[in-house]
């Protein structure tokens, strides 16, 4: 397996050079990057996505297949198996033409050379400057861009306006700082009948990153500074963040099952109308719009003192794998997904966020002030970067989950953060 990869890379490099030469010969700079003319030539393409984006990706692929001669066959792979599957395929050179990737894992793929360079193609797009920067950043390695945004999601604080009313709170005034979150949670929990003011995923690392890091970013603290080679969680800001969650737990303002919540059923209690406030993300907007149980509101995640707001921009990017022999055709699809009509009529229409900032005011997103608020929040978005991200932060047996649990449920918050800082740093050092 070992000697194969460099040979393959050499072949890909050669192919890339050939394509580049062909492009130059054709005059270059045009959207149509195929050397043979129209890239919509009836090619058969393959695409892999993780199950988190299944319906989203399926809608785009179905629409593309219906309107083009090219045909994309989409394979949806369970989230937990995605890296393993991609790793095995990379080893045996059987990657699909188009490979989507969770943004937090993308740096691993670009570093290992799994994607073909798309810098020229992307930069020549007329709307290049408005493509979601957070996603382009994670897809950039050593100055070259390897992928474009596929799906965007963003973390926010949802709240149940009906419960706010019942608890005597103003439903149009969501909490603006930690003191208000605690105060409101107390009042909502006091309603009784199994209703809790807040909801915490106490055993889920990914949930923690998604909803806790924004509190820190809003306070001006970067949890993974120096390009993801350092960790910075043993500080006053994180002590305030975990201090709030600790107090919410100690005062029983969250459900007892939160301690073992691994993320799999996290939004259920909120969607059932039993939770006052929930920090989660745009992927549940569709479900919230469909339910008729209660009226919901949304507000950005804030710094502990409420001085600023921030969000985690998650989601997926999609690029063309080094195994693909249909670069022009694959790019035709990727470029098509970024065009205004698809971004608005397929993506925004279904409650998802467009991957271009110039389209955040589209008719569907703008029609609902709540989705507009989420889309506008992207301006203050961050996407964390660290090479061993999955192992350190998403792994249920990893150091971040241990830190979260120690900080919220353990005997000593300060000690948990100090130990977590040390263990995560050790993992980052080992990977760099």
């Amino acid at each position, binding site marked *: 397996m*070992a000697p194969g990869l460099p040979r393959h890379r050499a072949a890909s490099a050669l192919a890339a050079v050939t394509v580049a030469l062909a492009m130059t010969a054709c005059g270059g700079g045009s959207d149509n990057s195929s050397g043979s003319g129209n890239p919509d030539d009836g090619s058969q393409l393959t695409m892999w996505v993780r199950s988190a984006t299944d319906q989203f990706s399926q809608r785009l692929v179905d629409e593309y297949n219906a309107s083009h001669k090219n045909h994309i066959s989409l394979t949806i792979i369970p989230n937990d198996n995605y*890296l393993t599957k*991609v*790793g095995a395929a990379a080893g045996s050179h059987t990657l699909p033409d188009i490979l989507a990737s969770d943004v937090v894992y993308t740096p691993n793929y670009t570093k290992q050379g799994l994607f073909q360079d798309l810098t020229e193609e992307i930069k020549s797009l007329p709307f290049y400057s408005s493509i979601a920067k957070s996603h382009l950043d994670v897809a950039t390695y050593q100055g070259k861009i390897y992928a474009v945004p596929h799906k965007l999601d963003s973390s926010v604080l949802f709240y149940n306006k009906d419960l706010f009313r019942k608890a005597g709170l103003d439903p149009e005034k969501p909490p603006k700082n930690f003191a208000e979150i605690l105060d409101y949670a107390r009042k909502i929990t006091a309603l009784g009948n199994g209703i809790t003011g807040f909801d915490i995923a106490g055993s889920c690392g990914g949930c923690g990153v998604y909803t806790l890091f924004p509190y820190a970013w809003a306070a001006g603290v970067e949890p993974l500074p120096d390009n993801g080679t350092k960790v910075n969680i043993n500080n006053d800001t994180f002590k305030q963040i975990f201090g709030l969650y600790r107090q919410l737990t100690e005062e029983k303002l969250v459900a*007892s*099952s939160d*301690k073992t919540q691994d993320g799999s059923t996290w939004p259920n209690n909120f969607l059932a109308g039993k939770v006052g406030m929930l920090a989660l993300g745009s992927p549940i907007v569709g479900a919230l719009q469909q339910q008729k149980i209660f009226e919901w509101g949304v507000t950005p995640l804030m710094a502990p003192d409420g001085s600023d707001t921030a969000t985690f921009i998650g989601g997926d990017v999609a690029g063309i794998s080094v195994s693909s022999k249909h670069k022009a055709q694959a790019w035709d699809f990727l470029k098509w997904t970024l065009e205004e009509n698809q971004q608005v009529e397929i993506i925004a229409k279904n409650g998802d966020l467009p991957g271009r900032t110039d389209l955040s005011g589209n008719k569907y997103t703008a029609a609902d002030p709540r989705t507009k608020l989420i889309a506008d929040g992207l301006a203050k978005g961050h996407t964390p970067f660290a090479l061993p991200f999955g*192992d350190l932060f998403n*792994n249920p047996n990893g150091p971040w989950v241990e830190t979260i649990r120690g900080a919220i449920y353990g005997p000593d918050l300060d000690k948990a953060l100090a130990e977590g800082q040390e263990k995560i740093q050790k993992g980052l050092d080992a990977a760099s």
Partner: protein
Amino acid sequence: MSTTAPAEAPVRTPPLTRRRAHRPATRRPLTGLLFVAPTAVVVAGLFLAPLGILVYMSFTDWPLLGSPTPNGLDNYRQLGDDDQFTGAITFTLLYTAITTVVLFAVAFVLVAISNSPRRGARFYRTAYFLPYVVGTAAASSMWWVDSHDELGVFNRLLQAVGLIDRPIGLLATPGKALGTVIALVVWKFIGFQVIVLLVGLQSIPGEYYEAAMVDGASVWQRLRYVTFPGLKPTLALLTVLSVTGSLLAFDQFFVLTHGGPDNSTVTVVLALYNKAFQSYRLGNAAAEAVVLLVALIILNVVQLRLLRSRDREE
């Protein structure tokens, strides 16, 4: 004569049997080897070749993405510094000991119930065995839901009978999580244990009990001198199966506890899985697999030796 003959016989027998055992091997015809060749090829292809690759992997730095590079004994050296792996060894041994003892203790009680001639014994036997036909992963998923504070029935049952006032988080602390997994394992595997013990019991000739009763043996003496000696091979088999199965425990922890809370229920195989499929350090995982394999071989050799020596004594 009559007293010396039996004494001499065992002395002569071993060399004879050994010679007899060796002769056919040297005369084994080539056609015989040809007949076993397909099986040998399958074994070599499906077991020896992957094993060889595994051992090779254990001496390399083998990331999921990228090229492997040989790194000598580094993977084995790192095992000692790996808190999760060393912690997993301790936990797995503890889990194996508790599970084996609890399984036997519960099985004896259930065997006593279902071996009696009273009505309904057959119903009990079937009832005990039913959970065994459910896959471990499926059973673990069921228990995951049933252990949940809000979704599950366990807390409601305990509340209904007045043992608890509010849901107690059956997977929330290391002790409770281990207890819940052991309860699952007992529920799931007890049927097999009971059936095998019943077969063992029923293979003890009734005449032995009659003879013992004629000699005036009490219930306890019959248990001690007839039942237990008669069950020895069955008990040895069940111990080997239970110990090996527990040392390789994975599904129930992977599904039910994810190794939590606070990494308190990470077994050796789960640690190995994490190393390979969470950390993507395949070389380290291979080293752990080799260590586990060697440990299991040693354990099984010791157990089988003990079993054979018991047979010889008898």
